[in-house]
Protein backbone atom coordinates (compact mmCIF):
# COMPACT_ATOMS: atom_id res chain seq x y z
CA UNK A 1 0.00 0.00 0.00
CA UNK A 2 1.46 3.35 -1.06
CA UNK A 3 1.60 6.53 0.97
CA UNK A 4 -1.38 7.92 -1.01
CA UNK A 5 -3.47 4.74 -0.64
CA UNK A 6 -2.96 4.89 3.09
CA UNK A 7 -4.10 8.52 3.42
CA UNK A 8 -7.88 7.89 3.86
CA UNK A 9 -7.23 5.35 6.62
CA UNK A 10 -4.82 7.67 8.44
CA UNK A 11 -7.49 10.36 8.24
CA UNK A 12 -10.27 8.14 9.56
CA UNK A 13 -7.94 6.89 12.31
CA UNK A 14 -7.69 10.51 13.48
CA UNK A 15 -11.48 10.77 13.37
CA UNK A 16 -11.83 7.57 15.40
CA UNK A 17 -9.42 8.96 17.96
CA UNK A 18 -11.51 12.14 18.06
CA UNK A 19 -14.79 10.40 18.87
CA UNK A 20 -13.23 9.04 22.06
CA UNK A 21 -13.20 12.65 23.26
CA UNK A 22 -16.90 13.19 22.57
CA UNK A 23 -18.44 15.21 25.40
CA UNK A 24 -20.02 13.18 28.18
CA UNK A 25 -23.52 14.63 27.73
CA UNK A 26 -23.68 13.62 24.07
CA UNK A 27 -22.26 10.17 24.80
CA UNK A 28 -24.87 9.68 27.53
CA UNK A 29 -27.65 10.77 25.21
CA UNK A 30 -26.50 8.32 22.54
CA UNK A 31 -26.43 5.49 25.09
CA UNK A 32 -29.92 6.51 26.23
CA UNK A 33 -31.22 6.43 22.63
CA UNK A 34 -29.75 2.94 22.24
CA UNK A 35 -31.45 1.66 25.39
CA UNK A 36 -34.74 3.27 24.31
CA UNK A 37 -34.53 1.63 20.89
CA UNK A 38 -33.87 -1.77 22.43
CA UNK A 39 -36.71 -1.38 24.93
CA UNK A 40 -38.97 -0.51 21.97
CA UNK A 41 -38.05 -3.91 20.57
CA UNK A 42 -39.00 -5.61 23.84
CA UNK A 43 -42.26 -3.64 24.33
CA UNK A 44 -43.63 -2.44 21.00
CA UNK A 45 -46.24 0.28 21.54
CA UNK A 46 -48.92 1.13 18.97
CA UNK A 47 -49.50 4.62 20.39
CA UNK A 48 -45.75 5.24 20.27
CA UNK A 49 -45.63 3.94 16.72
CA UNK A 50 -48.31 6.44 15.65
CA UNK A 51 -46.35 9.30 17.28
CA UNK A 52 -43.12 8.17 15.65
CA UNK A 53 -44.91 7.95 12.30
CA UNK A 54 -46.28 11.48 12.71
CA UNK A 55 -42.85 12.76 13.73
CA UNK A 56 -41.15 11.18 10.75
CA UNK A 57 -43.82 12.17 8.26
CA UNK A 58 -44.71 15.65 9.47
CA UNK A 59 -46.71 16.25 6.29
CA UNK A 60 -49.28 13.74 7.64
CA UNK A 61 -50.34 16.12 10.43
CA UNK A 62 -52.20 18.62 8.17
CA UNK A 63 -53.81 15.66 6.36
CA UNK A 64 -54.99 14.25 9.69
CA UNK A 65 -56.50 17.61 10.66
CA UNK A 66 -58.25 17.83 7.28
CA UNK A 67 -59.58 14.27 7.70
CA UNK A 68 -60.95 15.16 11.15
CA UNK A 69 -62.60 18.33 9.83
CA UNK A 70 -64.12 16.42 6.93
CA UNK A 71 -65.46 13.65 9.20
CA UNK A 72 -66.97 16.33 11.51
CA UNK A 73 -68.65 18.01 8.55
CA UNK A 74 -69.90 14.63 7.29
CA UNK A 75 -71.41 13.80 10.69
CA UNK A 76 -73.16 17.16 10.73
CA UNK A 77 -74.64 16.40 7.33
CA UNK A 78 -75.92 12.95 8.34
CA UNK A 79 -79.73 12.58 8.45
CA UNK A 80 -80.20 13.02 12.21
CA UNK A 81 -83.17 15.37 11.75
CA UNK A 82 -85.39 12.88 9.91
CA UNK A 83 -84.67 10.18 12.48
CA UNK A 84 -85.74 12.40 15.37
CA UNK A 85 -88.84 13.50 13.43
CA UNK A 86 -89.86 9.86 12.94
CA UNK A 87 -89.33 9.14 16.60
CA UNK A 88 -91.42 12.15 17.52
CA UNK A 89 -94.27 10.99 15.27
CA UNK A 90 -94.19 7.48 16.78
CA UNK A 91 -94.25 8.92 20.29
CA UNK A 92 -97.09 11.33 19.61
CA UNK A 93 -99.27 8.88 17.68
CA UNK A 94 -98.69 5.91 20.01
CA UNK A 95 -101.16 4.61 22.60
CA UNK A 96 -98.96 5.71 25.49
CA UNK A 97 -98.69 9.37 26.48
CA UNK A 98 -95.08 10.76 26.07
CA UNK A 99 -94.89 11.40 29.84
CA UNK A 100 -94.99 7.64 30.40
CA UNK A 101 -91.46 7.27 28.98
CA UNK A 102 -90.07 9.71 31.56
CA UNK A 103 -91.61 7.71 34.42
CA UNK A 104 -89.05 5.51 36.28
CA UNK A 105 -91.68 2.91 37.13
CA UNK A 106 -92.58 2.58 33.47
CA UNK A 107 -88.99 1.57 32.49
CA UNK A 108 -88.93 -0.95 35.38
CA UNK A 109 -92.28 -2.34 34.23
CA UNK A 110 -90.88 -2.66 30.67
CA UNK A 111 -87.82 -4.59 31.93
CA UNK A 112 -89.97 -6.93 34.01
CA UNK A 113 -92.26 -7.49 31.07
CA UNK A 114 -89.31 -8.22 28.79
CA UNK A 115 -87.93 -10.77 31.27
CA UNK A 116 -91.17 -12.81 31.16
Amino acid sequence: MTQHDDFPYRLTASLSQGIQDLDAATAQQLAQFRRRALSARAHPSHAGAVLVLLHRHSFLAPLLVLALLFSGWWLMQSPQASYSAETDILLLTGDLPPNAYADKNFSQWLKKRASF
Partner: protein
Amino acid sequence: MRVEAGIFDADDTSSRNVATSQEIDAFLAGVERRAFKQALFAIQDHHSALDVVQNAMLKLVERYADKPGEELPPLFQRILQNTIHDHFRRSKVRNFWVRLVSPLQNKEDETGDTLESLAAHSEAMHQPGPDKQASGNQQLAAIEQALTELPPRQREAFLLRYWEELDVAETAKAMGCSEGSVKTHCFRATSALAAKLKDRGISL
Protein backbone atom coordinates in the same frame (compact mmCIF):
# COMPACT_ATOMS: atom_id res chain seq x y z
CA MET B 1 -31.63 9.80 -2.89
CA ARG B 2 -33.63 7.31 -0.86
CA VAL B 3 -32.65 3.67 -1.09
CA GLU B 4 -35.26 1.01 -0.49
CA ALA B 5 -34.76 -1.36 2.40
CA GLY B 6 -35.20 -4.52 0.41
CA ILE B 7 -31.85 -4.35 -1.32
CA PHE B 8 -30.05 -6.05 1.53
CA ASP B 9 -32.86 -8.48 2.17
CA ALA B 10 -31.79 -12.05 1.97
CA ASP B 11 -33.80 -14.64 0.10
CA ASP B 12 -34.23 -16.70 3.21
CA THR B 13 -33.54 -15.19 6.61
CA SER B 14 -35.40 -17.86 8.54
CA SER B 15 -32.55 -20.34 8.14
CA ARG B 16 -29.99 -17.91 9.63
CA ASN B 17 -29.49 -16.67 13.16
CA VAL B 18 -31.51 -13.62 14.12
CA ALA B 19 -29.47 -11.00 15.99
CA THR B 20 -30.06 -11.10 19.72
CA SER B 21 -30.75 -7.97 21.78
CA GLN B 22 -27.19 -8.18 23.15
CA GLU B 23 -25.76 -8.32 19.64
CA ILE B 24 -27.81 -5.31 18.53
CA ASP B 25 -26.82 -3.44 21.70
CA ALA B 26 -23.13 -4.17 21.10
CA PHE B 27 -23.41 -3.20 17.44
CA LEU B 28 -25.16 0.10 18.19
CA ALA B 29 -22.73 0.88 21.03
CA GLY B 30 -19.86 0.45 18.59
CA VAL B 31 -21.36 2.56 15.83
CA GLU B 32 -23.35 5.28 17.63
CA ARG B 33 -20.56 7.87 18.00
CA ARG B 34 -19.45 7.56 14.40
CA ALA B 35 -23.09 7.78 13.31
CA PHE B 36 -23.52 10.96 15.33
CA LYS B 37 -20.41 12.50 13.76
CA GLN B 38 -21.57 11.51 10.27
CA ALA B 39 -24.93 13.17 10.88
CA LEU B 40 -23.18 16.23 12.34
CA PHE B 41 -20.89 16.59 9.31
CA ALA B 42 -23.94 16.50 7.04
CA ILE B 43 -26.45 18.55 9.05
CA GLN B 44 -24.09 20.76 11.10
CA ASP B 45 -26.58 21.01 13.94
CA HIS B 46 -25.95 19.18 17.20
CA HIS B 47 -29.58 18.57 18.23
CA SER B 48 -30.75 17.56 14.76
CA ALA B 49 -27.81 15.16 14.44
CA LEU B 50 -28.82 13.51 17.72
CA ASP B 51 -32.43 13.25 16.50
CA VAL B 52 -31.27 11.61 13.29
CA VAL B 53 -29.20 8.99 15.14
CA GLN B 54 -32.10 8.26 17.50
CA ASN B 55 -34.51 7.79 14.58
CA ALA B 56 -32.03 5.58 12.74
CA MET B 57 -31.60 3.36 15.81
CA LEU B 58 -35.37 3.07 16.27
CA LYS B 59 -35.89 2.22 12.61
CA LEU B 60 -33.21 -0.46 12.69
CA VAL B 61 -34.64 -2.12 15.80
CA GLU B 62 -38.30 -1.78 14.78
CA ARG B 63 -37.96 -2.98 11.21
CA TYR B 64 -34.83 -5.10 10.92
CA ALA B 65 -34.36 -6.70 14.33
CA ASP B 66 -35.06 -10.07 12.71
CA LYS B 67 -31.94 -9.83 10.54
CA PRO B 68 -28.73 -11.71 11.24
CA GLY B 69 -26.02 -9.73 13.04
CA GLU B 70 -23.70 -9.55 10.04
CA GLU B 71 -26.34 -7.70 8.00
CA LEU B 72 -26.73 -4.92 10.57
CA PRO B 73 -23.75 -2.64 9.58
CA PRO B 74 -24.76 -1.99 5.95
CA LEU B 75 -28.45 -1.84 6.94
CA PHE B 76 -27.79 0.73 9.65
CA GLN B 77 -25.65 2.84 7.35
CA ARG B 78 -28.36 2.91 4.72
CA ILE B 79 -31.01 3.79 7.32
CA LEU B 80 -28.76 6.56 8.66
CA GLN B 81 -28.21 8.06 5.21
CA ASN B 82 -31.95 7.87 4.46
CA THR B 83 -32.75 9.51 7.79
CA ILE B 84 -30.31 12.35 7.02
CA HIS B 85 -31.99 12.83 3.63
CA ASP B 86 -35.42 12.74 5.34
CA HIS B 87 -34.22 15.48 7.69
CA PHE B 88 -33.32 17.73 4.76
CA ARG B 89 -36.62 16.96 3.03
CA ARG B 90 -38.62 17.79 6.18
CA SER B 91 -36.63 21.01 6.65
CA LYS B 92 -37.46 21.97 3.08
CA VAL B 93 -41.22 21.39 3.67
CA ARG B 94 -41.09 23.25 7.01
CA ASN B 95 -39.27 26.20 5.42
CA PHE B 96 -41.88 26.29 2.64
CA TRP B 97 -44.74 26.60 5.15
CA VAL B 98 -42.82 29.12 7.28
CA ARG B 99 -42.20 31.24 4.18
CA LEU B 100 -45.88 30.95 3.26
CA VAL B 101 -47.08 32.04 6.69
CA SER B 102 -44.41 34.69 7.32
CA PRO B 103 -46.08 37.49 5.23
CA LEU B 104 -49.04 37.27 7.67
CA GLN B 105 -46.86 38.39 10.57
CA ASN B 106 -46.26 42.07 11.08
CA LYS B 107 -42.87 43.56 10.43
CA GLU B 108 -41.92 44.11 14.10
CA ASP B 109 -42.58 40.50 15.07
CA GLU B 110 -40.78 39.30 12.00
CA THR B 111 -37.63 41.22 12.91
CA GLY B 112 -37.75 39.92 16.46
CA ASP B 113 -38.31 36.34 15.34
CA THR B 114 -35.52 36.53 12.81
CA LEU B 115 -33.06 37.74 15.40
CA GLU B 116 -34.20 35.08 17.85
CA SER B 117 -33.99 32.32 15.26
CA LEU B 118 -30.54 33.53 14.20
CA ALA B 119 -29.40 33.48 17.82
CA ALA B 120 -30.88 29.99 18.30
CA HIS B 121 -29.29 28.76 15.09
CA SER B 122 -25.93 30.19 16.10
CA GLU B 123 -26.26 28.54 19.52
CA ALA B 124 -27.16 25.21 17.92
CA MET B 125 -24.26 25.45 15.48
CA HIS B 126 -21.84 26.08 18.31
CA GLN B 127 -23.23 23.31 20.50
CA PRO B 128 -20.58 20.81 19.46
CA GLY B 129 -17.97 23.33 20.54
CA PRO B 130 -17.22 21.80 23.95
CA ASP B 131 -16.07 18.45 22.58
CA LYS B 132 -13.91 20.19 20.00
CA GLN B 133 -12.43 22.42 22.68
CA ALA B 134 -11.95 19.47 25.02
CA SER B 135 -10.09 17.55 22.36
CA GLY B 136 -7.79 20.54 21.93
CA ASN B 137 -6.77 18.96 18.68
CA GLN B 138 -6.25 21.41 15.86
CA GLN B 139 -5.55 18.60 13.43
CA LEU B 140 -8.86 16.92 14.20
CA ALA B 141 -10.69 20.24 13.92
CA ALA B 142 -9.09 20.83 10.51
CA ILE B 143 -10.04 17.32 9.32
CA GLU B 144 -13.62 17.75 10.50
CA GLN B 145 -13.87 21.16 8.87
CA ALA B 146 -12.49 19.77 5.59
CA LEU B 147 -15.03 16.92 5.70
CA THR B 148 -17.85 19.38 6.33
CA GLU B 149 -16.81 21.36 3.26
CA LEU B 150 -16.94 18.34 0.93
CA PRO B 151 -19.93 17.87 -1.40
CA PRO B 152 -22.48 15.61 0.42
CA ARG B 153 -22.14 12.58 -1.89
CA GLN B 154 -18.35 12.64 -1.75
CA ARG B 155 -18.40 12.88 2.05
CA GLU B 156 -20.98 10.08 2.28
CA ALA B 157 -18.92 7.78 0.04
CA PHE B 158 -15.65 8.58 1.79
CA LEU B 159 -17.02 7.98 5.31
CA LEU B 160 -18.87 4.79 4.39
CA ARG B 161 -15.90 3.38 2.53
CA TYR B 162 -13.01 4.33 4.81
CA TRP B 163 -14.54 5.02 8.24
CA GLU B 164 -17.31 2.42 8.30
CA GLU B 165 -15.09 0.14 6.20
CA LEU B 166 -17.88 -1.06 3.93
CA ASP B 167 -16.64 -2.56 0.68
CA VAL B 168 -17.36 -0.85 -2.64
CA ALA B 169 -20.44 -2.99 -3.35
CA GLU B 170 -21.96 -2.35 0.09
CA THR B 171 -21.22 1.38 -0.18
CA ALA B 172 -22.87 1.47 -3.60
CA LYS B 173 -25.95 -0.27 -2.22
CA ALA B 174 -26.12 2.02 0.80
CA MET B 175 -25.83 5.09 -1.43
CA GLY B 176 -28.10 3.78 -4.16
CA CYS B 177 -25.55 4.30 -6.93
CA SER B 178 -23.15 2.26 -9.05
CA GLU B 179 -19.82 0.93 -7.81
CA GLY B 180 -18.09 3.13 -10.38
CA SER B 181 -19.73 6.22 -8.86
CA VAL B 182 -18.53 5.18 -5.41
CA LYS B 183 -14.96 4.88 -6.68
CA THR B 184 -15.21 8.30 -8.37
CA HIS B 185 -16.70 9.95 -5.25
CA CYS B 186 -14.03 8.37 -3.04
CA PHE B 187 -11.19 9.41 -5.35
CA ARG B 188 -12.45 13.00 -5.56
CA ALA B 189 -13.08 13.17 -1.81
CA THR B 190 -9.60 11.86 -1.00
CA SER B 191 -7.95 14.32 -3.40
CA ALA B 192 -10.01 17.23 -2.09
CA LEU B 193 -9.29 16.35 1.54
CA ALA B 194 -5.56 15.99 0.87
CA ALA B 195 -5.52 19.40 -0.85
CA LYS B 196 -7.57 21.10 1.89
CA LEU B 197 -5.38 19.71 4.66
CA LYS B 198 -2.20 20.62 2.79
CA ASP B 199 -3.48 24.20 2.45
CA ARG B 200 -3.96 24.30 6.21
CA GLY B 201 -0.50 22.92 6.84
CA ILE B 202 -1.76 19.59 8.19
CA SER B 203 0.18 16.46 7.31
CA LEU B 204 -1.04 13.02 8.30
